[in-house]
């Protein structure tokens, strides 16, 4: 039986509980002048946009700007939204990734990873350093992937979206998504294998 008590926004790619209005309905309410609808939509959707942008860009300030711009476009298109054609989250992911690509094409070199520190107070300093190194490793490896592979891998393995939704976001077939994620994972594995010693996995 579906657990209706869990916070729906914590689960990516899963529909909301039946007793809550969907994104479509909230967007219509916002277009009709309901300010509260904007708050719920922001809570639900903006963290996803931020997460993808952060993983794609590897820079927090840029990722936050992209998320703000993507949400701005959401507010502006609200009156024109046709319910049922696509998921609002799919639309937002697509806009977010397009903004990220535009930003990267304007600025060539990737900045170094800017992934937040772990918040676990119990972790020892050594553990924290190792954690940071691993996250940097993933971010650095991701930044070396070709653009489309990076998008597909982030959406599949970090956002945990189903392949058909990724296909909708990227405007490609499900088979193409599978191919991109497979190649992306192979590339990441190869990149990471080059620096195994730095990551300290053999100690775990």
């Amino acid at each position, binding site marked *: 039986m579906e657990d209706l008590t869990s916070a729906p926004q914590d689960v990516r790619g899963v529909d909301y509980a039946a007793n809550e209005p969907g994104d479509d309905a909230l967007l219509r309410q916002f277009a009709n*002048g309901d300010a509260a609808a*904007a*708050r719920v939509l922001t809570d639900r959707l903006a963290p996803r946009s*931020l997460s993808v942008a952060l993983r794609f860009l590897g820079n927090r300030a840029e990722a936050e700007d992209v998320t*703000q711009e993507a949400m701005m476009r959401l507010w502006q298109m609200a009156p024109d939204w046709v319910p049922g054609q696509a998921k609002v989250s799919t639309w937002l992911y697509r806009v977010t990734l397009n903004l990220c690509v535009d930003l990267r094409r304007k600025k060539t070199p990737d900045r170094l990873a800017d992934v937040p520190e772990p918040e676990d107070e119990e972790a020892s300093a050594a553990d924290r350093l190792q954690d940071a190194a*691993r996250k940097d490793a*993933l971010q650095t490896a991701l930044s070396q992937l070709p653009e489309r592979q990076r998008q597909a891998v982030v959406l599949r393995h970090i956002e945990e979206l189903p392949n058909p939704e990724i296909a909708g976001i990227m405007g490609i077939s499900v088979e193409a998504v599978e191919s991109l994620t497979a190649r992306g994972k192979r590339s990441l*594995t190869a990149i*990471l294998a080059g620096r*195994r010693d730095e990551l300290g996995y053999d100690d775990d």
Partner: protein
Amino acid sequence: MNWGMTMTEDKDNLDLLFAQARQDRQELPDDLAVRILTDAESVRLSRLQPDEPKAAPRWARLLTGLGGWQGMGGLVAASMAGVWIGFSAPEFLPDPANYIYAEDVSFVVADLSLDTSFLEDAE
């Protein structure tokens, strides 16, 4: 070296990295939430305002260009004054009609007098 084992370990490591990345998914920072909601509010308020400038017909835009109803009133008053002055010029203004017709009138009179004297001579 056992390459098969190494590849499996690397894939496991990658899966571990993905799992950690999923755990680290970010909450929305408060200041970003405020920025986003400020945008939403400005869009919402701009939509609540009647968008007359966009939908205004041509005559309304022309009226606005001429200074609104007040400007239009002034324009009408000035036009009417012009029409009235045309009909009945005040004495302190020269009447252009006099300039145009003055010579013709005197010429006609002179002509008539000439005609009369001529007739008298003939008699």
